[in-house]
């Protein structure tokens, strides 16, 4: 079903129309095949980049779309309604552009951002390590100063788009403690960088998640983004925005599950009537709709605060928590609506339920979101 969206202006409406056209033709038609075969959709991100969908919340002067988060996130949601893995990778690409935009020098921005925002270069975000996920400060990948720049040694984990992306926002240690992490813009082709085999995941099959092994690759000095030691600050401020992207992905996924469930409940008959007309099931669908709407309202509230220049970190965590928990519940209930059929791979709801689970885990698990929220409350 087409979501009736509140949008600020005609340009935003045109952007959503364009997104829907591309998502219907390029995503909805290919998603089942690629998710089943676990194959990467070659050329798809070039199409999204060509249409201007890979740099939406960044300034037009640098090749971005100049859109507020309120609009950008609804584009992500529309993508996620058709293909969660593509929406997540788009959100992560946007996240990977954040450090250069927010902390880069004018030279760094002008040198890299136009290609990144046009999608000619696809980005990944490399913070996590095997032993450092929630506890990002425990990362150990080393960046040693050498004459020509920084030598990188160590292992990174769980990189969305790993091995395929053209550049990575890389976080590595230049010193001790929480002030000892630095941020780099690393090219995917650096000599001495190799990637592990794609993880065998529960969902998001079409976009690989890999580890990376850094074996003494040297990055030029101008690849350092921000100051030495500023890395964790950059990582966490990027994640405040990234979490909103994940909240939008989760909302789109939940919307898709709701739509499938409602359509099915209007067709399927038991005891002489449509199952949607059995109050017990109609109420289940009503709760699902309430979950989707409240997820959208919550992420849009955080986005509008961000767009207005107000603090939004706590609201971003609330949005991520609310939207991803809603997605888990709604997709699980969608399987319930389909009965036995929902448990088979014949129907998309089975995949939606598997895809929802990761939303509660990455870009800060929902336990970590509660930690962030409670720390705000304790201030």
């Amino acid at each position: 079903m087409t979501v009736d969206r509140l949008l600020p202006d005609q340009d935003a409406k045109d952007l959503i129309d364009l997104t829907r056209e591309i998502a219907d033709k390029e995503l909805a038609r290919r998603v089942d095949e690629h998710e089943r075969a676990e194959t990467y959709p070659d050329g798809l991100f070039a199409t999204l980049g060509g249409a201007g969908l890979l740099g939406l919340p960044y300034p037009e002067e640098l090749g971005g779309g100049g859109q507020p988060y309120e609009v950008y996130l609804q584009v992500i949601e529309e993508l996620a309604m058709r293909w969660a893995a593509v929406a997540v990778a788009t959100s992560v690409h946007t996240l990977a552009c954040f450090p250069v935009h927010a902390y880069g020098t004018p030279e760094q921005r002008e040198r890299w951002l136009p290609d990144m925002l046009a999608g000619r270069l696809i980005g990944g975000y490399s913070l996590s390590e095997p032993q450092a996920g929630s506890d990002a400060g425990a990362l150990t990948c080393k960046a040693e100063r050498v004459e020509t720049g920084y030598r990188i040694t160590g292992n990174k984990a769980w990189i969305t788009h790993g091995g395929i992306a053209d550049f990575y926002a890389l976080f590595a240690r230049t010193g001790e403690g929480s002030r000892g992490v630095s941020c780099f813009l690393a090219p995917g082709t650096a000599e001495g960088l190799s990637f592990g085999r794609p993880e065998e995941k529960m969902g998001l099959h079409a976009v690989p998640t890999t580890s990376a092994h850094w074996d003494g690759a040297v990055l030029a000095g101008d690849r350092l983004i921000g100051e030495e030691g500023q890395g964790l600050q950059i990582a966490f401020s990027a994640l405040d925005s990234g979490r909103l992207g994940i909240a939008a992905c989760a909302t789109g996924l939940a919307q898709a599950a709701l739509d499938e469930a409602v359509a099915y409940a209007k067709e399927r008959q038991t005891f002489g009537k449509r199952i949607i007309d059995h109050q017990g099931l109609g109420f289940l669908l009503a709760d699902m709709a309430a979950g989707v709407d409240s997820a959208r309202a919550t992420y849009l509230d955080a986005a509008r605060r961000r767009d207005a220049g107000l603090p939004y970190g706590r609201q971003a965590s609330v949005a991520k928590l609310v939207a991803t928990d809603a997605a888990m519940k709604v997709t699980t209930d969608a399987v319930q609506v389909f009965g036995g059929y929902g448990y088979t791979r014949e129907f998309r709801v089975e995949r939606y339920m598997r895809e929802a689970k990761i939303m509660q885990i990455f870009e800060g698990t929902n336990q970590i979101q509660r930690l962030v929220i409670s720390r705000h409350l304790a201030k």
Partner: protein
Amino acid sequence: MNIVVCVKQVPDTATERKLRSDDNTLDRDAADGVVNELDEYAVEEALKLKEAHGGEVTVLTMGPGKATETIRKALAMGADKAVHLSDDALHGSDALSTSYAMAQALNKVGFDLVVLGSESTDARTGVLAAMLAERLGVAQLTLANKVDVDGTSITIQRITDYGYDRVEATLPAVVSVVEKINEPRYPSFKGIMAAKKKPVETLAIGDASIDPSQVGLAAAWSEVVDFAAAPPRAAGTIVKDEGDGGAKAAEFLASKKFI
């Protein structure tokens, strides 16, 4: 090269399409208007030719005020400007008068090459390219699946049952294209924003020296006298194969006089 691409607004084939009960013409307000699908291929080809040879791409649309939506789409894809031929007097024009009116507009606008789709999805007469070429006194190269321009000569390729035809002509010329010719681009968000600022010139019939007595419903050579909705499809016959499925299927086909 001055390229004019003809773009028709048609009712979305995904929605229910209706004729008006008062004059038996298409009810253009009843359905969402979209770019005739083949015309997107025509726009793409025009843009490619411009990218290769330089020049300018102008969109020409004849249609009611609402057709500006589809003009914007062609402009968002990258066309430079548009001419919108729009006049109440044109309502109900048949293929002959449409080609007359568009030829007048083309003569006013000027062109080296006119690119069209080979058929619309609403009227589907497929005659406009031929009629336009005749009226303009230039060569017609129809059903192209490949177009090459070299200086003032143009060559197209047309797929046939036995291989393909190569047709060559001198510019100016009229070309119609089929969907095998290319893959139309999506507009970009920037293209959509830029399109809002591109010039769209609206022509009434007087502006293009169109004789009012030769257009519109009254001048049409063909007339829709009556129409009826297609009958709903009857339920099919299910043949259960108990070893004699083939014979039963043949029996069914024979009863419908197919074999």
